[in-house]
């Protein structure tokens, strides 16, 4: 089975927002194809009658009381950001020139 081509990797890297080099694309295509072939073995036993488990310990709710608790200040929340004005994140341009 050869499902993961360099084109697939480019597409997935775009979705993942990672700007891979051509060398990385080639290498990952080979590696990921081998990994994907190996892991696809899960299909052998995953018959329709088996329910899926998303969470190891079933729990419901998990909501706490709707009461104000301790929160970060705006200054604390932005303190680790690469660029900010003291209270707000400063981001790169959202739109390119063609937009």
């Amino acid at each position, binding site marked *: 089975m050869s499902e993961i081509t360099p084109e697939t990797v480019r597409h*997935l890297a775009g979705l*993942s927002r990672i*700007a891979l080099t051509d060398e990385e694309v080639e290498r990952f295509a080979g590696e990921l194809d081998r990994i994907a072939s190996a892991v696809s073995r899960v299909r052998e036993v*995953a018959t329709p009658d088996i329910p899926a488990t998303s969470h190891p310990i079933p729990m419901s709710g998990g909501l706490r009381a709707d009461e104000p608790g301790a929160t970060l200040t705006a200054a604390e929340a932005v303190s680790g950001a690469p660029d900010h004005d003291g209270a707000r994140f400063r981001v790169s341009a959202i739109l390119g020139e063609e937009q």
Partner: protein
Amino acid sequence: MSDLIRNSAEAQAAALAAGEVSSVELTQAHLDRIAAVDGAVHAFLAVTPERALAEAKAADERRAAGQARGELDGVPVAIKDNIVTKGVATTAASRILEGWIPPYDATVTQRLAGAGLISLGKTNLDEFAMGSSTEHSAFGPSRNPWDLDRIPGGSGGGSSAAVAAFEAPFALGSDTGGSIRQPAAVTGTVGVKPTYGAVSRNGLIALASSLDQIGPAARTVVDAALLHDVIAGHDPLDATSIPEPWPSMTAAAREGRASGSLAGVRVGVVKELNQPGFQAGVKELFQQRLEQLAAAGAEIVEVSAPHFEYAIEAYYLILPAEASSNLARFDSVRFGLRVEPDGGGTIEQVMAATREAGFGPEVKRRIILGTYALSSGYYDAYYGSAQKVRTLIQRDFDAAFEQADVLISPTAPTTAFKIGERIDDPLAMYLNDLTTIPANLAGVPGMSLPIGLAAEDNLPVGLQLLAPAKQDARLYRAGAAIEALLADELGETLVARATGLAAIEGGSN
């Protein structure tokens, strides 16, 4: 003083309580040890001596005033660097978080401080805990105190190496597929993955949220239990935290140690977790110990878990899927690194350039694999099937625990391998986790404890114990009993025999 750091945390705490040593002296002794050996071991990404000594001074003042916060007040600890610490750089061993100073503490970090423990610093790991060797750390691998050319396990190899090198009496780790247990096995130390939901994940930098669990790394079972008791318990800040009280793990461990008996304990040997391909010395030692357990009163039964053979495959779909989503938060806006492409760019281009520069190859590999597993047209075949395998593995555990009180296996297929030996073959690296992954998929607790040295290479071998969900105390009772049973042969700790640092120790004293 140099002897004191080789003692258990329990003995260090007793020395503090008896007034034989102050926390400042004990903390300084560990800082001196770190200064002497960590250049070679590289267990720590950051050491915080001033902060540690200030905390130690406060602990001494509390004790002098008769207000010690508990048994461990004033005892040092190390923290894996994917657990956030307010005011102390936290990187998860990734360039993308280099220099990030968290504005808050993880719940476990708060609980350590609340119990008076002294944080020495942050320990190394594979980047975002993705790996079995620390070779995927962006800041270089940690080294095994038994042999500096070998890996200390991973992802929590910094914590296991720190504990094995007597740089800290115990440490926090996180275990997503074996990252506490496998490092314990290859360094001759003890590591525990608690039941999923026993310890709050609030402030743990998420890898795979349905698998991650914080737990203790230590040199003795009682020490692991002492640390477990400090960090466990319900936390409203983690929606997956189990809202129930827990029995004392320390009491269970001390009971097991005192009895040294396994009378009446049904010990299940999992056929699928003890395979012909495992290293001969690992298999031989495991078999020999089984006979000793039987002689100590255990009833040995063979159990089969037929779907465990699909566990690695399911894991390497579920983990990348969850990781690809969790790591989307590293977006060039909120934390750490931002890299502008030449000539600037839109946020999308900046994000892609930042993630290209900030993530290492294993992280990229898993994010892309996870994106693939979750993509339209493949979701049912991959992610959906993996979740079904998870159900089958839980059923296997349920059936096995009908026949046995605890399950056992070797913790890892081999002893510590050489740095560089498996780094170029990701699939081979993934197979290291064969024995430890089923516990994460099912949420059950697991422990690794040392059982001796493999005949062919004189390196430590670990025994893995597994118990049903929420029966963590059973692990500690049985684990401490086994440890006591082997103490005549192995001494109080196996790791006292590690000789990888002999040259440095000879030179520095």
